[in-house]
């Protein structure tokens, strides 16, 4: 599985990172080196192995289904680069 320029462009789009045209090719090279390196995992037959889903053996706790926090609009919006009246402001989305 080899990554080309177009794949980098597509993945960068998925990741929402603007990528200048001249960086696509070098990044394809970097990703290919990394992917070639991780290919070695295919040496191991894992057909009968379950993927890890929990790092330590523990069961998740249940908590009471009640409101435990809220009314924090000021704190929640305080760090926004742009906003007013406890709203986040973004460029116009709908015409």
């Amino acid at each position, binding site marked *: *599985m080899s*990554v080309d320029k177009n*794949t*980098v462009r597509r*993945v*960068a789009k*998925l*990741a*929402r*990172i*603007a*990528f200048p045209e001249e960086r696509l090719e070098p*990044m394809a090279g*970097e*990703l290919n*080196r*990394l*992917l070639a*390196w*991780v290919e*070695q*995992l*295919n*040496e*191991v037959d*894992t057909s009968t*192995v*379950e*993927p*890890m*889903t929990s*790092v*330590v*053996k*523990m069961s*998740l*706790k249940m*908590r009471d289904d009640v409101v435990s926090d809220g009314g*924090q609009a000021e*704190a*929640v*919006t*305080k*760090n*926004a*680069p*742009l906003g007013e009246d406890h709203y*986040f402001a*973004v*460029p*116009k*989305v709908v015409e």
Partner: protein
Amino acid sequence: MSDLTGLTIAEARDGLRKKAFSARELTDAHIKAIEKARALNAFVTETPELARAGAAESDKRLAAGSARALEGIPLGIKDLFCTKGVLTTAGSHILDGFKPPYESTVTRNLWDAGATMLGKLNMDEFAMGSSNETSYYKPVINPWRRKGSNTPLVPGGSSGGSAASVAARLVLGATGTDTGGSIRQPAAVTGIAGIKPTYGRCSRWGIVAFASSLDQAGPMARTVRDCAIMLKTMASHDPMDSTSVDMPVPDYETAMTGNVKGLRVGIPKEYRIDGMPAEIEALWQKGIEWLKAAGAEIVDVSLPHTKYALPAYYIVAPAEASSNLARYDGVRFGLRVPGKDITSMYENTRAAGFGREVQRRILIGTYVLSAGYYDAYYIKAQKLRTLIARDFDEAYKKCDLLLTPTAPGPAFGIGEKTDDPISMYLNDVFTVTVNLAGLPGISVPAGLNSEGLPLGLQLIGKAFDEATLFRAGEVIEKAAGMTPRPQAWWEV
């Protein structure tokens, strides 16, 4: 009095209680040391006023005889921990100006026990790095230098500011986080101790997330005992983090009996990697001899999937990072770079806000999670993780803990490894298995190499058995008998 910054946490705690000095004096000595050490670039933000306010409160409590566990102990905090009202950057441009409206559980635990904050410590951007060179705030410089050389060396990473500030006597201890070795590797190359506890021992709430199934907070300090003291307070069950475990935190300090008689120490043969420097091999051998001399039993064990740990890590960690870092979009906090519409605003913000290594890992993570590749990469890596964890389970049928080197070499020069990501990733070859399996691992300062640079040994334990690591770690620390202290060349 003259050398308050040279005390261990245990000594400072006892000195404060005996009124040999005040919390204010202890704090001021550290603030002065920090001011003189700006050449190390260990801090992103200094908070002397917070430290002094905390010290005033501590002095009142000490006078009233109501001192808490860490009363008056000044600490540094890795800039990955959210601290209420204090700039928290994760070493990234994208968190410009972010002042969290809440406190992380780990730091809350420390303040509730009377500790105070000297400032926020520099780190690799989003904890992605092994040298501190990916920080937006420029690299931290290792207080150690090669004998007869002025070449600036890296302090390891990602908790490089934590390691450098502890080694340079700027703080009595520091918090770190460890996703693939980010506490243990910097601890090793700066001559200090640091432990990554078992996954779930410390709450991750309020710690900027990198790879959620691997991240764990832990203490970094100059002695094993100091790490034990700090971890006792840092660890807790927390309803805000469903992966934090609800089990008692032992009194690690009293578990440090100095007795390792009959303890079975496993030596994993796969850690004897190709091209390992002779000095690392020799140090490992010394560690074996020290533990043997103290009455421990040495057992050969095998961890056959060790070589697959790093490649598995470089699928799992970027995959989780690409998901976690999706939140940085220029809307709710930090940097925003305008664009012609909302999508280009996201793209421009993330292009300007993330550094090269972070972008590389987000792209890798996005790729391995994208349609058609998920099974081939992510699921495959999680299966290898099962096998790696199983290796440890098998080994622990024959032994109680494992002894390995912490890092494959001493501190290297700034810029020496930045061109080749994979050679940089190899710094974590001995530490990353521990994160994948969720186990605890401690790095103990164990000697200096021929160039006078510190090296560390790692002990790996069974899940939730940090107590044994502290007990055996102290035995190594004492046998090594080094009081590693770099020359204070940085003082102005």
